[in-house]
């Protein structure tokens, strides 16, 4: 058992952390959010240049052949820096699907993604449901030369600017069935697609996307017809890992900043960090952060090494980032007092990001129940 990064991974970590600290100040992020629809093209160009967009892809596909561990290293640093650009949507989730695409599909979509000229979004959630893949109602009907998509998707992250939409739709069965789901690679410019963009609470962007008689050619199908559920679950699992790494980074900053604030903020003539009640609560925050990091390690390594209980460990991680993360973030705001409630301080933005991470792909409760059922 070995928990240390190897030389290359350490260099990668140092380089991402250097970028975040040096080239991604909070003002730049704020500008990106409020003036650039949460996407700074210059930042994305640097990601491409530094090779981070190529990281998780096989060398024969033009990638760097990095493993899950490298992705975790990048995301933890992005979590610390509260990077708002849609790395997870495009590279982790979008890229996760494209890694499993066929050669023609890769040539069409993956090459520009790695180059930095393509944005992707996973159109999965729908209204009137709490994230559950089997509840998918949107359907794709077979036509002589392809498929006809009909339905709508809610809160598609990065959906406002994505060039490529990866759409989960029903090619047979009814909502609730765990068969009959298929995945499609859809050009966002296809006729019949309409988007209502919106901001998200954590400074990112999403869209409600309508599909009205959208005609797809047969080669839009990703993987096997009717076998989309398993693939979607695999990629969601990888996405949850990435969110977990980001959360671990964000939690480290929340803990650090809160402790620093408590050491310097004076009330009643002393630093508030000298109050025992607050000390004990910060000790609890510390333990929650450490336990989260432990589960990130467990889930990443078990998935990477394909252990039988990898899926369980990923559920466990999502439970912990949701529930431990919520508690730590709420305490960080509370201990900052009024300042924690301001848009000005970074604390609140970490709070919002952790709130969003919990809500995505099923919150702590959903994953705890999934864990319970799988481990009974």
């Amino acid at each position, binding site marked *: 058992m070995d928990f240390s990064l190897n030389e290359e991974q350490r260099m990668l970590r140092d380089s991402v952390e250097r970028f975040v600290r040096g080239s991604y100040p909070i003002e730049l992020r704020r500008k990106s959010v409020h003036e650039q629809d949460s996407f700074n093209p210059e930042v994305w160009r640097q990601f491409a240049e530094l090779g981070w967009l190529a990281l998780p892809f096989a060398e024969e596909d033009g990638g760097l052949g990095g493993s899950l561990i490298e992705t975790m290293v990048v995301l933890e640093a992005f979590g610390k820096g509260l990077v708002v650009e849609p790395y997870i949507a495009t590279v982790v989730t979008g890229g996760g699907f494209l890694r499993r695409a066929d050669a023609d599909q890769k040539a069409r979509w993956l090459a520009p993604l790695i180059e930095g000229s393509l944005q992707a979004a996973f159109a999965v959630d729908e209204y009137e449901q709490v994230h559950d893949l089997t509840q998918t109602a949107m359907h794709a009907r077979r036509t002589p030369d392809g498929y006809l998509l009909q339905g709508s998707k*809610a809160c598609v992250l990065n959906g406002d600017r994505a060039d490529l939409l990866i759409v989960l739709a029903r090619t047979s069965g009814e*909502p609730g069935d765990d068969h009959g789901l298929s995945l499609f690679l859809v050009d966002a410019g296809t006729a019949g697609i309409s988007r209502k963009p919106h901001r998200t609470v954590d400074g990112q962007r999403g869209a409600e996307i309508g599909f009205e008689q959208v005609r797809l050619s047969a080669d839009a199908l990703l993987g096997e017809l009717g076998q989309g559920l398993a693939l979607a679950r695999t990629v969601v699992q990888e996405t949850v890992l990435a969110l977990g790494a980001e959360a671990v980074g964000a939690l480290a900053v929340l803990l650090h900043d809160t402790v620093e604030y408590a050491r310097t903020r004076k009330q009643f003539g002393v630093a508030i960090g000298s109050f025992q009640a607050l000390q004990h609560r910060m000790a609890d925050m510390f333990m929650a952060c450490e336990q989260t990091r432990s589960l990130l390690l467990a889930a990443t390594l078990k998935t990477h090494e394909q252990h039988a209980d990898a899926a369980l460990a990923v559920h466990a991680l999502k439970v912990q980032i949701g529930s431990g993360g919520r508690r730590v973030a709420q305490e960080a705001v509370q201990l900052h007092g009024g300042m924690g409630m301001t848009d000005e301080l970074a604390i609140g933005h970490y709070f919002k990001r952790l709130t969003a991470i919990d809500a995505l792909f099923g919150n702590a409760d959903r994953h705890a129940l999934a864990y319970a059922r799988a481990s009974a």
Partner: protein
Amino acid sequence: MDLHIPAAEHAFRDEVRSFLADNLTAEIREAGRLATSVFADAGLAMAWQKILHARGWAAPHWPEEHGGPGWSISQRAIFAEELVRAEAPPLVPMGLLMCGPCLIGCGSPEQQAHYLPRILSGEDFWCQGYSEPGAGSDLASLQTFAEIDGDDYVINGTKIWTTYAHHANRMFGLVRTSREGKAQSGITFLLLDMNTPGITVEPIVGLDEIPEQCQVFFDNVRVPRSNRVGEENQGWGVAKYLLTFERGGAEYAPMLGIQLARVKQFAACQKIAGGRSLMQDDLFSYRVARAEIDILALEFTENRIKSELGAGKSPGALSSMTKILGTELQQKVTELAVDALGAQALIWQPRAIEPGSTLPAVGPEYATTAMARYLNARATSIYGGSNEVQRGIIAKMVLGL
């Protein structure tokens, strides 16, 4: 021992309901429904106050001789409950619930005659100048100084977390008039005109992107000495008097009950695995039940306090308990709302939910306010005396620790 409601109270409830049905306009009701904080849209809240004032109902807690309706404790509770049930926006509390009662108890006859009618009518919009950047939980350490110069105080310093200072034309507040002795003993309670030269107001944008709070700067601001409430250096006592009054009446349970009912309503429309609704999910409905049980308990705790008040006793430190329980439950209820939404909770459109906004909102209506409410509710355990301070009060005042 009984839960009996006298017929007269039923009749009074009917009277309130019919008044609300006739007078609470759709526009004002929308301001209540969309409010994501205890502070509704300022303009519409004031409009609503004017309507209530016309009926003599703007200040249920005030004594009759100053313009209160002369209601019993039960009547006030019924009135408050019906306002919540009708989704009326809460009135701005700084004048009616804070400054007014304080002037009634501690103000001079002249101050009462001048200010009280203008509070009732909404002509004056008050804000509260207490906290400072260095004086939050430790309010007594405040440093904004008022120096005597002839008939005036000359004020320098700054106040922070001043809710709606950018809407207000008046401020009541605490300033330091002496640096001698204990910190509490050099503080004076003053009334200010916000249009006095030297006052600058800077709104503070909150997590929910709404500028509800402000920082206020004082640069040689002259305030007539006649605007002092109580004696010089005795302002701490005035503030404490205000606090007792402010807390006594607060009731959280009715509002919490309605907020939770809304969560249940939309959770019943959310599907989970197997096509069941989220309310059929044992874990989620368990969490809802736990909140509902806590709210029922709080309802009876508040009833018990009311019945003590009715018997002429002071609720004392028990109001610290309802503040803690009420605010932490509110946080729990807003959390449940977010949890019921899944990814839709992320849709963020603060401008679209302003009353009267014509911006198109994305997603179902119930998703539009939940996140802003959740964010805003985090402040409830910070302001009004943080819950840490309240726990300290219980430990000291109730438990004698």
